[in-house]
């Protein structure tokens, strides 16, 4: 997929260099928390949390599922390494970098653009920085988190990446400010 970008209320850009590894297992277990921290350099997030530092991080997807973020080139090796380290724990590790699409939204209206598409209260009092929200946007499932007050990342299945880019661009169309 080519680099895509749309500039409007926010700029929508497809992130091409994000590696993603799904880890399933008991996230409260010590072994998984230790290994994921060693692999990413960040602490295991709390319920519905996202701890991300640069291209590395851990997203809390459900009580037994975490998404490990890593630079794209490192993902296959890291997945293999995690698989080996967790081989004696009840866990499953899969490199899903090619199965997911990631979009970055940048601009002061980022909360408004997210709120147009997802049934989520994006007010700063409710959706804090460092919180992950798994929900739907339009017709498709997705997860998103705010990296700062002016930028967010959205993850969805790559098979619906075109759709996601389309609805994000449309929600960010110039002149469609929520509070104009």
């Amino acid at each position, binding site marked *: 997929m080519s680099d895509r970008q749309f500039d409007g209320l926010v700029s929508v850009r497809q992130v091409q260099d994000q590696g993603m590894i799904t880890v399933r297992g008991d996230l409260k277990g010590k072994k998984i928390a230790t290994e994921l921290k060693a692999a990413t350099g960040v602490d295991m997030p709390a*319920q*519905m949390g996202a701890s991300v530092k640069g291209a590395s991080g851990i997203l809390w*997807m*459900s*009580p037994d*599922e975490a998404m490990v973020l890593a630079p794209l080139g490192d993902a296959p090796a890291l997945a293999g390494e995690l698989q080996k380290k967790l081989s004696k724990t009840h866990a499953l590790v899969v490199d899903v970098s090619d199965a997911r699409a990631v979009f970055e939204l940048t601009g002061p209206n980022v909360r408004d653009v997210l709120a147009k598409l997802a*049934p*989520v209260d994006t007010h700063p009092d409710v959706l804090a920085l460092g919180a992950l*929200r*798994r*929900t*739907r946007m339009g017709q498709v*499932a*997705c997860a998103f988190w705010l990296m700062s007050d002016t930028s967010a990342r959205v993850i969805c299945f790559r098979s619906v990446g075109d759709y996601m880019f389309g609805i994000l661009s449309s929600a960010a169309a110039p002149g469609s400010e929520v509070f104009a």
Partner: protein
Amino acid sequence: MLTLNCPYCGLDKDETELAYGGEAHLKRFGPGSTDEDFESYIFGRENPKGVHFERWRCASGCTKWFHAARCTVTMEVFGTYSAQTFEPPKAIKDAISKKRPGWTWRNFS
């Protein structure tokens, strides 16, 4: 529009983020059971005007199944709880009793 709190995410979820899973606390009767039991497992459902128990799935969220207790008349939600249980926890029953004294549903009250 219903808003249910998913006990696994801990977040209030919009009905459009959830998938309905039918009546809660059904006991399965499979091969070898009596015709009456099998028939009621397949077709016998409550259709109450009032307190009701349902299964829901946090479909576009954490994907976990959970249970919800609500009123079919007022759409009031009494609470949600784990799917790993055969009957509603005491806290849920107490919450219902406070609002609907004397309620019954199948064998629960």
